[in-house]
């Protein structure tokens, strides 16, 4: 390792925060349900990055274990979410979040 300058934990936290923010904006702006999920995945990845950065700062493996759990949760979430999307798009191809207006809200 050639030590020029080490990015501190702060760098990683800021990167994660920006990633999380991009995900939030995406969820609020986009309309395609598939893309909405992808934005939620961005948010989860930001959290993972935060956990790993914190784990290194603390010298504690627990943060990495948590990321493992988050991965499982993300996988389960996506499976169910895509199941719902397939169920809905099979009836109405090309639906976007705005077309889902059977429920007025």
């Amino acid at each position, binding site marked *: 390792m050639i030590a020029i300058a080490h990015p501190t934990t702060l760098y990683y936290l800021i990167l994660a925060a920006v990633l999380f923010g991009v995900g939030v904006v995406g969820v*609020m702006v*986009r309309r395609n349900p598939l893309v909405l999920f992808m934005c939620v995945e961005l948010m989860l990845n930001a959290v993972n990055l935060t956990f*790993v950065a914190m784990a*290194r700062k603390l*010298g504690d493996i627990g943060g990495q*274990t948590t990321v*493992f759990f988050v991965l499982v949760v*993300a996988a389960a979430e996506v499976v169910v979410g895509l199941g719902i999307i397939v*169920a809905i798009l099979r009836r109405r191809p090309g639906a976007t979040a705005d077309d889902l207006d059977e429920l007025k809200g």
Partner: protein
Amino acid sequence: MELVVFIIAGAMVIGGALGVIIRSHPVHCALSLVLTLFGIAVLFIAQNAQFLAAVQVIVYAGAIVVLFLFVIMLLGVDQAEDLRIEPFKIQRPLAAVVGVGIVGLIITAAITSRNAFTPKPAVSPAVAAATTNPPLHDENIRQLARDLFSDHVFAFELTSVLLVIAVVGTVLLARRPDRAQAVTTDARKAPV
């Protein structure tokens, strides 16, 4: 060295993330997502989380995004979304405000507690132990496994419940409605 890695991977992450929310085509969004995921995996390796980096690629890039692409292709919902249309006028400014607000909040929070982070803690217990006696080749994996099956064993078992729910749920959702007795959306108009 780590800084260079950080900058390149960080650019991948942010570039990919922006791609996800800017590209109008779902497949392009998914590919941008892959870029972000790889960036994150690289950052994991840079922070000594090799196992997670591999799992990140296997689970996210290898399973989740493939599933996304699969659904996009299978259902043929791959037409581009017209991003110029803005259904609610207030939506985008609001999203921008919320997004910037959240990022600002966290960054401020992180910077105010900066002194907890800036002095690089080379003497954190694990690292300290590592310098005195050379670590095993796969130290990270061993630590992770030990933690997973001792301190977090209950959480680990809970993930199995989660997976059972995902399986049961998908089976339930994947059933086609029987066409013979389909009920229309409004029962009042349906011949009873």
